[in-house]
């Protein structure tokens, strides 16, 4: 059964680096990994996406090891405004096996 697993919650302090790991043991060859961020009373919004190794943009980095069974979202030097829920998503589009495999979300609290 395809599944993505991530921690329910994390705490951090302003200025620290935060790493959130998502486990996707049954990831398939053509699956990509995407992370979304959601603030209260808003819909999720795209942060970063990757297939393997490392991807970096202006907001975050995404580390994916060679076996691709997990991925780690890295937020450098977090601020209070990074307090949000972070979702990991694996998209499977393989013939008749089409599925969006969402994690349950990690609630990140950044403290002063």
């Amino acid at each position: 059964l395809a599944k993505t697993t991530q921690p329910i919650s994390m705490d951090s302090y302003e200025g620290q680096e935060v790493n959130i790991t998502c486990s996707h043991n049954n990831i398939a060859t053509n699956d990509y990994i995407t992370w979304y961020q959601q603030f209260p009373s808003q819909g999720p919004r795209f942060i970063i996406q990757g297939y393997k190794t490392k991807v970096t943009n202006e907001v975050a980095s995404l580390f994916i090891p060679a076996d691709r069974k997990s991925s780690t979202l890295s937020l450098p030097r977090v601020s209070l405004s990074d307090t949000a829920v972070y979702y990991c998503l694996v998209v499977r589009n393989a013939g008749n096996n089409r599925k969006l495999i969402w994690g349950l979300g990690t609630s990140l609290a950044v403290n002063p």
Partner: protein
Amino acid sequence: DVKVTQSSRYLVKRTGEKVFLECVQDMDHENMFWYRQDPGLGLRLIYFSYDVKMKEKGDIPEGYSVSREKKERFSLILESASTNQTSMYLCASSFSVGLSGTDTQYFGPGTRLTVL
């Protein structure tokens, strides 16, 4: 700027009523999605549509139907609302036809539906 709008932010209905939730996107996207979001359960896909009049069931389609008569508009219908359908409903759209790993979903602000 990309925009997905939902007809209501808050909605209160009675058990047994027929409920329509509307979603409009202005990005000429092919895919549109309806999710519900409940505490501790994350995002669960109800239906998605990859073209006008085309739809596929998601993980929890029971009790819901959808309609996509125009490319920009995707409606979620609760034929006979029940209290267990009280939830946050999120609409999203994306560029590709069908599910693609490299696609980005753009979400609306959500409709919080309460069924009494």
